[in-house]
């Protein structure tokens, strides 16, 4: 017990140090520094939201289009960026493995955390600004919003645990990843609620852990203006399974890894 507590303290120290290192190498110390982390989701969500509101008007199925798109697009950018950032991180960071307390798992945690925190900051900022113009609702159920976000992100993290070691084993993965993520957008729940679909399509998309998280998130945000369909056990179960595979792969890759 005491040993586990000590190990946990060491890991906490390592993760904080790696995070600071990552932020300084990626964003530098000049101008707005690490606030850049939320720039991309922010721009994407607001511009795409604006574009849609010109294309289909202010409202769709009774909810504001800009708010709807922004709430879907921010988790999507977090997902896409986290996946992309996990490719080849073990070898790229291998100089740090000279320090025994640094684990390959820490690299994945740090990259994912930075993307996720950036996404949360972007969500908060965009929501506040849009709310001032009356374009974003005050969240109806904050707990459900957070729970949905956590479920979505838990699955993103589990997939990262697989992508990071798999990218060291196969070069094809790096090439296939962007197109796979792009094709999977309909299964991310970004652009529609499940209730807008036909019953047959509903049964298909509800197998996606992302859709279940997103439905809960949207219910937390828009309240009774939307009708959510979700089952929290889909993202929880899928995450557990995928994370178990990922951890096993990480362990395997660490064993055969050549550190310069």
């Amino acid at each position, binding site marked *: 017990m005491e040993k586990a507590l000590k190990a946990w303290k060491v890991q906490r120290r390592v993760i904080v140090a790696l995070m600071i290192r990552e932020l300084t*190498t990626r964003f530098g110390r000049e101008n707005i520094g690490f606030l850049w982390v939320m720039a991309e989701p922010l721009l994407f969500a607001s511009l795409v939201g604006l574009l849609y509101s010109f294309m289909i008007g202010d409202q769709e199925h009774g909810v504001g289009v800009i708010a709807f798109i922004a709430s879907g697009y921010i988790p999507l950018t977090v997902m896409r960026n986290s996946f992309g950032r996990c490719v080849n991180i073990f070898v790229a960071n*291998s*100089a740090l493995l000279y320090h025994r307390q640094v684990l390959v798992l820490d690299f994945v945690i740090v990259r994912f955390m930075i993307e996720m925190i950036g996404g949360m900051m972007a969500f908060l900022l965009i929501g506040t600004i849009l709310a001032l113009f009356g374009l974003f609702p005050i969240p109806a159920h904050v707990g459900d919003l957070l729970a949905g976000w956590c479920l979505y992100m838990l699955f993103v993290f589990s997939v990262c645990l697989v992508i990071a070691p798999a990218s060291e084993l196969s070069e094809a993965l790096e090439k296939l990843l962007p197109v796979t993520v792009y094709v999977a957008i309909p299964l991310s729940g970004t652009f529609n609620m499940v209730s807008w679909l036909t019953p047959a399509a509903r049964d298909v998309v509800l197998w996606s852990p992302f859709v279940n998280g997103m439905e809960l998130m949207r219910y937390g945000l828009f309240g009774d203006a939307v009708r959510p369909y979700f089952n929290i056990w889909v993202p929880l179960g899928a995450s557990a399974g995928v994370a178990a595979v990922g951890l096993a792969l990480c362990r395997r890759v660490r064993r055969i890894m050549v*550190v310069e």
Partner: protein
Amino acid sequence: MISCINLQKNYRVGHSQKRVLKGINFTIAPGDRIGLLGRNGAGKSTLIKLIGGVEVPTAGKVRREMSCSWPLGFHGGFQGSLTGYDNARFIARIYGRDYDSMREFVEDFTELGRQLRMPVKTYSSGMRARLAFALSLAIEFDCYLIDEVIMVGDKNFQDKCHAELFEKRKDRAILLASHSPDSIREFCNRAAVLQDGHMHEYADVDEGLTIYERL
């Protein structure tokens, strides 16, 4: 005490396996100063990386019952794109040391001055050696793993290493991989020769050096 128990390491080369270490049994007791000898490719760096926990053995085990530095060498341990100060700060953080006293020691030991504000990738090998030693001496380990790097330093650096490692830290163990008979004679009191994946130990440094020179 650090013990290697039947340590084996294979590397994958294409579809076959290259066996670099074929069962090393070896212990480093507190205060031991061991010179690690062997031809290029004999597995000296591999053994040091396994003892330091940088790579994982294919079979066998390393048991560490005293604290052990990371392998001090030309590669690893640093982030090339970060400055000397940033690297020091990172290492102070992950080892839970106070950065201010660390910075003071590093400035004093390396004598790099303004260079510490430059990215480590712009450093010469001698400058890297100074930084690596300064950082690990600031943390205080019971055992230092040194891979070649001591030889690239100038006279002033060698003198400093001697003072820090041999006068102030007489009780610490070192494992020094080197091709230079002079440094092995100067720093070590035992020798180990790696050949064909096996290790032969010699209580007398000169005996080990003679064997090594005949390889």
